[in-house]
């Protein structure tokens, strides 16, 4: 293998964002006064100077060909003085100085790109997701495909603002859960301890594999005259941390792995403060190419949320107010012993009062 000569500069650092700001962003940097949502997917930000900057938000599939990105650029050159941005949830934000350009731009976004406009205010934002089978070495499911199928189902809730509050959704393809906390999360669940391939065990990794196990279930063992490991299966909780360390600790099982739905995660400190998501239902089949059972379960949660939440209540805040008993009643998901935490700090999740809803 040849290596190229070291010629280019190193450690350039982050790109200079000031070069990339829309002229109205640069001019009014830090001097914005207020904003309004003009309609789903369209915002206006008004500066102290009186300038107005319009934003059209479009959902993207995140994974894009260079040709698609160039089409986006062509539209931004025509209407946005060559400037745009992306959001943390993989939406594209086209930035416009002229209100009369909004409708022509939206038409081109729909006709040329086929991207929907929405994702603002009390709507479903674009689902954030991980690499999945497309390009990760650890996943038990795909992400981009599951998200595509789910967003087909939730399309109307992306292009309209008809929910009590914003709903953020994420997916993760293994139990590392790179997708993060969300109002509704779809995560892969392993059900079996790792299967060890003793023949391919990489010796240099063994101490790391032992060390990373959070429940000390992995320990050294000689197998057929070679250094290897064993897993104490009663201790193992199928987290897959060892699999990340060593590909010979295969945690995935195409027949056994399922999907679980989690609800009530929130990052904002707004009102109730941040919260972790909690288990809503489990055991959904990992069912490519369209994962219909997942879409059905998510819709069930959304329907109950729409019917029961007050304005501005996030999913977790709604459940906190009405209680988990009510949540399981209105969604129809069974509550089982598997919903009760039995890991660290489990007791902090128990009801330590006599307050019950009867």
């Amino acid at each position, binding site marked *: 293998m040849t290596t190229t000569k070291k010629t280019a500069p190193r450690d350039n650092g982050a790109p200079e964002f000031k070069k990339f700001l829309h002229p109205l*962003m640069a001019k009014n940097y830090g001097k914005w006064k207020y904003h309004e949502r003009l309609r789903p997917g369209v915002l206006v930000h008004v500066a102290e100077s009186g300038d107005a900057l319009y934003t059209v938000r479009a959902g993207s599939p995140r994974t894009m060909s*260079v040709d698609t990105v160039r089409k986006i650029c062509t539209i931004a050159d025509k209407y946005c003085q060559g400037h745009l941005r992306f959001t943390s949830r993989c939406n594209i934000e086209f930035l416009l100085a002229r209100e009369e350009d909004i409708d022509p731009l939206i038409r081109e976004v729909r006709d040329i790109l086929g991207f929907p406009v929405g994702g603002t205010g009390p709507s479903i934002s674009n689902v954030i997701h991980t690499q999945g089978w497309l390009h990760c070495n650890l996943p038990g499911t795909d992400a981009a495909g599951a998200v595509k199928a789910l967003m087909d189902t939730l399309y109307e809730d992306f292009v309209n603002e008809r929910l009590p509050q914003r709903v953020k959704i994420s997916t993760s393809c293994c139990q590392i859960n790179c997708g993060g906390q969300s109002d509704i999360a779809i995560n892969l669940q392993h059900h079996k301890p790792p299967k060890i391939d003793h023949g391919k065990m990489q010796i240099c990794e063994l101490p790391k594999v032992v060390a990373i196990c*959070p429940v000390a279930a992995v320990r050294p063992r000689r197998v057929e005259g070679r250094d290897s490991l064993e897993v104490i299966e009663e201790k193992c909780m199928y987290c897959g941390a060892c699999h990340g360390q060593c590909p010979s600790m295969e945690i995935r099982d195409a027949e056994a792995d399922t999907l679980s739905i989690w609800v009530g995660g929130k990052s904002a400190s707004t009102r109730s403060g941040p919260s972790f998501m909690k288990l809503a239902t489990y055991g959904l089949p990992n069912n490519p190419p369209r994962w219909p059972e997942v879409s059905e379960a998510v819709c069930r949660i959304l329907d109950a949320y729409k019917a029961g939440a007050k304005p501005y209540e996030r999913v977790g805040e709604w459940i906190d107010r009405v209680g988990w008993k009510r949540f399981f009643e209105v969604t129809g998901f069974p509550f089982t012993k598997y919903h009760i935490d039995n890991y660290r700090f489990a007791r902090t999740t128990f009801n330590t009062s006599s307050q019950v809803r009867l």
Partner: protein
Amino acid sequence: MSDTKEPEEIQTPLLDELEKGPWPSFVTDLKDLSEKKPAVKQLLGQLEESYETRTDHWLGTVINLDGYGGGVIGRYSDVVDKFPAMARFNTIRILEPSAWVYSTAALRELCDISEKHSAGILQFHGMTGDILMLGSDNEQTFEAGEELMEKGWDLGGSGAAMRTLACCVGPARCEMSCFDTLGLTKYITDTFISELHRPEFPYKYKFKLSGCANDCACSMQRSDMPIIGTWRDGIQVDQEEVARFIDERGERSVMNTVIARCPTQCMTLKDRKIIIDDDNCVHCMHCINVMHRALSIGRDRGVTILIGGKRSLKIGDTMSSVLVPFMKMESEEDWERLTDLVRRIWDFWGEHGMEHERVGEFIDRVGLGTFLDGIGLEPDPQMVNQPRSNPYIKFEEYTRPRMAGEEKKAPSVLNKEPDGEETIS
């Protein structure tokens, strides 16, 4: 090599199902791309196999550019006999501009490099924040890296390093931003560019910056060090706009959607005016979100710095918790004070942290009190929800747990090892 699939043999009936429906389809896009990039056809073929068997076909490996210890995610396929172009199919992580703002010229430059040196697939953006460029073999990876850096781009982070930062849109387009999220993101990135490119920490360290408590960068649970904007004077109230809001939406709406939802009950409505007990305001942003013409963030602005957030691997999720309740973040000196604090944390965690121990896990193990001692920060009641309720305290010494590499020392009350035979006699 007889197993190699000819392009016309690669059928994708399952993936084709994902071309249906109103949401844009990455499958359609990649199929179109495969017309000029044959490797993408093989990528889809391999993905189709994963859909058929619910089995992944990627393996990870390490590949680095000269002078770098990360930034490239090495990938090769375990079905390379069928899909030879997948023998090496790496991802290059590229540092994104703060708040993901772009000129089309910059995006076109990335497209050109991607088309020239990779499969022509870009992702905006990875979960950490990077621009991702997919599908280079090793030689192309070096070429793409050199060209990216020649044109002023740089690689993102991977491994046990400071990771690529991310921030909200901040002062570029938001009236709620309490500090310059974009500027500070670039400053931290550039100040610690060596720590980003050459992994030497116990494990990864992520920053995410949000201009206010709405936390659009999702910093609380997705970064080891969230930096979140806040203010320490009062919310600015425009009572004329309050009156206008009441005229438009009614007094009951103010009561139900604003006053009743304040987490500390610090607001009252009196004579069509909003009165705020500023001392009890926790700067949660809800009232400002709802009445954003009438209410706005205070003028004496800064940040709250938190620590320890991460996703589930390996002890379960941890939420960030307050480390510095308030710090001004306006001048270069303020920024330097922050990076000084970061260096102290990295020194202490770097010295005593265990392999693969995120800083939040480290704090769990050694205790927040020990951690504060170690980085030279005074305890503050804002760091906790409540003081401890368990009584087992070593007041006299606050014995810290054994650190990595230290000899095991018996506690002082047991410092004499009982000698079996002598004890019996």
